[in-house]
């Protein structure tokens, strides 16, 4: 390892910080990013590649970095895949490299692969096919992939902030600042997001003159003016996704604990001014630590005072390389050579500032820099890091050179940052003068400006930004004067000649790395083409070019150019692959925000919720509600408790909390007609004081829900819905009320929370109620017929008493005000009706063949469920017309049946598939519900079975391979117990 290069301190502050990397302690400076701090400590090896485990160092200095991904933090505060270049150093930071085992220096998998050569594209798919990919997947996944996902998450809650503006400007470089300024001066409301800690973008390196000032003074004055104009400037904040006009921005890349904020920004217009990303030129072994982007070296020097190496070779295809070389020389590094892939004729002759370039070249030569035109770096030499560059002339006849160096700085041009467009449907076009792609169309709500729009020189970028800001402000209706465009003068245009890769013999293409993050080489692209994957999107998926957290930032444009070369087409035809949001890794914790743990969803509580929790009720979610499955006092385990509770209900009685039932009041002169339309069967024939079991259909004829409808008055009904469906049924009723009945007299009102419902079921229920409710209720109770209800007062509050049963026992629903629910419940409990939970209720209802969402599962028609009588009684209700479709009447349609074990003993479980012996692998039905019935002493089931197999007495096989059980079962009536319902009609 070479000695640490010279160090001058960062632009962002002073003082030192201590941190660890792979367990070793290092010192950095305030303002360092993790990458610059490690570089200053002489660390060059920062990770291993995903597939080949090759040693990797830094390529870039910004969001383009594909290699240096770290896992930050420890234990439950672990964040994987954080780019070292985007991670601001903090005191005590714990960093770990990824993709290596047991250590970064010695990686076992890389040794294994060294023996077998490199895996090409499709290697995994082709090699691990027998017996199936799945059998190899766990092992391969352990060896591959980026950072490990943490097993626990104890990150503090990130802040979420909602912002609203006319114009969102992404990028506070020259163009973004000009755009924000123009739009703000015109009176538009602006949010300006800059992913770096400081505004200015390229002005950090390119010291131009703007409006007669040096760029630093101009920048300071402009930031003051933006502040005065009320522009919200968010630094260290990256816009990572465009959700159809809601932009997600993330502060603090990597989302370090306690410091990150997610902004949801609703903007009328987005001006994309996020600049351009420098791209490399591809040559053999270009993944060695020490091969870096030229612009990255400039940034490490200018911002962090860190030299990337001592002896440099520059490799580029444009004029900017010469000015860069000059700055690197001034920064104290030795530039051995500039390798220019262009011919002399292309670079300077006949240009107005050609003389300036010639004199720059002269002074570089004087300083000992060798200038090699029409040449290319073909191979990076070195084992652990770069030791030399091999250079060949591009025309035939010249001889090859070898120049010792520790760093090869490469620049193949700049690709406009199109990411937000590439996430969506934005069209793009090839710009040959850039060797890259630009946005093809500019709309008022999505404008690219500056380098992001292909304007690489300062003056053009700033006037482009100004125009974009003016346009966006006008589109937002701002009428002020946006001022005159800034007059800027910076570096001359780069005069780039597209050059994607150096010449290379076929065998060497396995080491020409296009996508460093995913180990995709030129050879892989050839394989993809040979195997017929020629579209850029197919090539992406077959070779993994541009997948992962990188999403092609460092590789998509180069990959498109090389694919074009291999296909003999123009890049304009090949195009560029789409990328996926987010633009940079964002933790799921950040996206979740406060929707975490108990706050993932709201919890609805019945008035008796606390009572259940305090009295051993084991609560489980049902929709947003929590309902007791059973009470601990009833038995040693869930099964025993449920059986005991069900037994008690049949023996003398029990109480259950059914407050979760949806309760909709339908009122108005046409309420009855409305319900006739909404339900199968006729609500209009229910007499006041009576209720009826009703079923509603979706418009395609499938059963949607069921419940009891009570007629409270001639023009007033109460419709109950199943517990999990309450909110949906409310919307469903409101929908059809609005669409078809709005001009007519029927209203829908949600009363779900206005009434608690306590069910008192069992032979003792009537006598217990009579005793408890007092003398006034005794007459009505005695006369109350099945499905009748009566209303009165209890403890000074309204109470409605409905005689209805979901258990098959004599039973009453007490609809009471929430204020007295607990008092009534405790009184019933004290009078000997003890609580039972959902599991007991399930036993009781399966014994009676009553249905829940297991049977009303969205795939069953009323005919499947044996409700022919209801269908006949109804006329023109919602969904009824489509019940006539022939397929609903075929012999293969399911039919609700009951099941018992053929031997009367064996258990069987819901989910098992039903088959006949002649076709043991082709199910003709499945079990929807199964319980052990304490009343009948055997297992009972409900099932949906093909009508042609559903004759009572038939035997089918219940196949349950996942639980290793096959049980012969007998088809019986779904009403297993008390088929005449004598018990509930007493």
């Amino acid at each position, binding site marked *: 390892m070479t000695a640490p290069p010279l160090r001058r301190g960062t632009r962002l502050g002073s003082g030192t910080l201590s941190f660890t990397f792979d367990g070793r302690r290092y010192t950095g400076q305030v303002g360092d990013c993790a990458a610059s701090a490690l570089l200053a400590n002489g660390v060059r090896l920062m990770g291993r590649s995903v597939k080949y485990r090759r040693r990797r160092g830094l390529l870039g200095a910004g969001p383009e970095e594909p290699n240096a991904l770290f896992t930050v933090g420890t234990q439950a505060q672990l964040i994987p895949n954080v780019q070292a270049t985007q991670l601001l150093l903090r005191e005590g930071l714990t960093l770990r490299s990824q993709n290596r085992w047991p250590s970064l220096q010695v990686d076992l998998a890389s040794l294994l692969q060294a023996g077998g050569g490199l895996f090409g594209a499709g290697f995994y798919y082709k090699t691990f096919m027998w017996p199936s990919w799945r059998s190899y997947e766990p092992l391969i996944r352990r060896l591959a992939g980026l950072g490990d996902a943490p097993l626990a998450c104890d990150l503090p809650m990130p802040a979420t902030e909602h912002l609203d503006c006319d114009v969102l400007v992404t990028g506070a470089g020259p163009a973004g600042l000009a755009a924000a300024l123009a739009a703000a001066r015109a009176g538009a409301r602006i949010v300006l997001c800059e992913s770096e800690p400081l505004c200015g973008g390229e002005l950090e390196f390119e010291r131009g003159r703007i409006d007669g000032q040096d760029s630093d003074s101009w920048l300071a004055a402009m930031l003051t003016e933006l502040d005065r104009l009320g522009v919200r400037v968010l630094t260290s904040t990256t816009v990572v996704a465009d959700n*159809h*006009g*809601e932009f997600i921005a993330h502060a603090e890349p990597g989302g370090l604990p306690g410091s990150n904020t997610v902004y949801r920004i*609703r903007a009328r217009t987005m001006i994309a001014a996020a600049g351009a990303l420098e791209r490399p030129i591809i040559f053999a072994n270009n993944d060695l630590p020490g091969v870096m982007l030229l612009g990255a070296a400039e940034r490490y020097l200018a911002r962090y005072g860190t030299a990337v190496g001592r002896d440099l070779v520059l490799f580029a295809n444009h004029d900017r390389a010469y000015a860069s070389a000059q700055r690197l020389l001034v920064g104290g590094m030795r530039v051995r050579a500039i390798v220019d892939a262009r011919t002399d004729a292309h670079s300077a002759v006949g240009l107005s500032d050609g003389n300036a370039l010639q004199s720059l070249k002269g002074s570089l030569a004087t300083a000992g820099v060798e200038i090699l035109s029409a040449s290319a770096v073909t191979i990076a030499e070195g084992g652990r890091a770069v030791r030399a560059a091999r250079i060949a002339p591009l025309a035939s006849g010249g001889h090859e050179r070898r120049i010792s160096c520790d760093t090869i700085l490469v620049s193949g041009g700049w690709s406009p940052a199109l990411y937000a467009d590439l996430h969506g449907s934005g069209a793009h076009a090839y710009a040959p003068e850039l060797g890259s792609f630009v946005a093809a169309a500019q709309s008022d709500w999505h404008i690219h400006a500056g380098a992001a729009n292909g304007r690489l020189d300062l003056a053009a970028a700033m006037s482009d930004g100004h125009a974009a800001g003016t346009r966006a402000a006008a589109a937002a209706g701002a009428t002020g004067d946006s001022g005159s465009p800034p007059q800027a003068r910076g570096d001359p245009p780069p005069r780039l000649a597209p050059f994607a890769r150096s010449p290379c013999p076929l065998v060497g293409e396995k080491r020409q790395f296009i996508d460093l993050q995913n180990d995709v080489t030129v050879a892989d692209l050839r394989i993809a083409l040979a195997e017929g994957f020629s579209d850029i999107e197919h090539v992406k998926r077959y070779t993994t070019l541009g997948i992962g957290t990188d999403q092609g930032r460092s590789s998509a444009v180069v990959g498109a150019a090389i694919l074009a070369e291999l296909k003999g087409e123009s890049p304009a035809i090949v195009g560029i692959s789409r990328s996926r949001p987010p633009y940079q890794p964002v933790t799921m914790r950040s996206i979740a925000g406060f929707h975490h743990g108990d706050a993932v969803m709201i919890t609805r509580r019945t008035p008796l919720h606390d009572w259940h929790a305090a009295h051993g009720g084991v609560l489980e979610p049902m929709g947003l509600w929590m309902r007791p499955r059973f009470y601990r006092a009833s038995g040693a385990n869930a099964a025993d408790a449920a059986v005991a509770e069900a037994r008690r209900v049949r023996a003398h009685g029990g109480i259950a909390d059914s407050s979760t039932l949806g309760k909709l009041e339908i009122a108005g002169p046409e309420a009855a007609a409305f319900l006739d339309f909404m339900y199968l069967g006729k609500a209009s024939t229910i007499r006041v004081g009576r209720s009826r079991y009703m079923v509603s259909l979706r*418009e*395609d004829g499938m059963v949607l829900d069921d419940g009891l409808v009570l007629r409270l008055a001639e023009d007033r009904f109460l419709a109950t819905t199943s517990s999990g469906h309450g909110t949906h049924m409310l*919307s469903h009723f*409101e*929908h*059809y009320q*609005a*669409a*078809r009945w*709005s*001009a007519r007299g029927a209203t829908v009102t949600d009363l779900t929370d206005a009434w608690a419902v306590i069910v008192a079921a069992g032979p003792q229920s009537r006598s217990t109620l009579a005793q408890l409710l007092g003398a006034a209720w005794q007459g009505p109770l005695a006369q109350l017929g099945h499905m009748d209800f009566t209303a009165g007062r209890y403890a000074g509050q309204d109470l409605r008493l409905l005689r209805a049963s979901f258990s098959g026992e004599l039973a009453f629903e007490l609809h009471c005000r929430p204020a007295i629910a607990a008092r009534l419940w405790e009184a019933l409990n004290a009078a000997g009706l003890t609580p039972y939970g959902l599991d007991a209720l399930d036993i009781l209802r399966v014994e009676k063949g009553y249905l829940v969402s297991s049977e009303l599962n969205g795939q069953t028609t009323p005919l499947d469920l044996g409700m022919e009588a209801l269908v006949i009684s109804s006329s023109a209700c919602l969904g009824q*017309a*489509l019940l006539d*479709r022939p397929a609903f009447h075929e012999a293969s349609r399911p039919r609700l049946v009951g099941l018992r074990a053929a031997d009367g003993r064996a258990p069987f479980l819901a989910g098992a598939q039903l088959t006949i012996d002649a076709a043991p692998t082709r199910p003709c039905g499945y079990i929807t519900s199964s319980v052990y019935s304490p009343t009948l002493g055997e297992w009972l089931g409900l099932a949906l079975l093909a009508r042609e197999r559903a004759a009572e007495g038939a035997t089918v096989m219940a196949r349950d391979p996942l639980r290793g059980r096959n049980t012969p079962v007998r088809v019986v009536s779904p009403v297993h117990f008390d088929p005449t319902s004598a018990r509930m009609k007493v």
Partner: protein
Amino acid sequence: MTRLACPFCGPRELREFEFHKTGPAAGGQGEFERVYLRVADPQLSIEHWQHVGGCRAWLLVHRNPSSGLPLAVELLAGNAP
């Protein structure tokens, strides 16, 4: 599209609304045609939304699916699905 203008509540955040179905029918008189045969026009989608997080009104929304932008919002009143 980040906001919808509810006729009662004014422009409101999209997450206050729920999307339920797309209309209208492509043509034909029968119920089957009404339920299943829907127009898929890249320039115009006619949709039903409910302002569930607000006034609960059902809305008829005309939207351009290509741009994602709403063209018109009115009450569903009487416009049969």
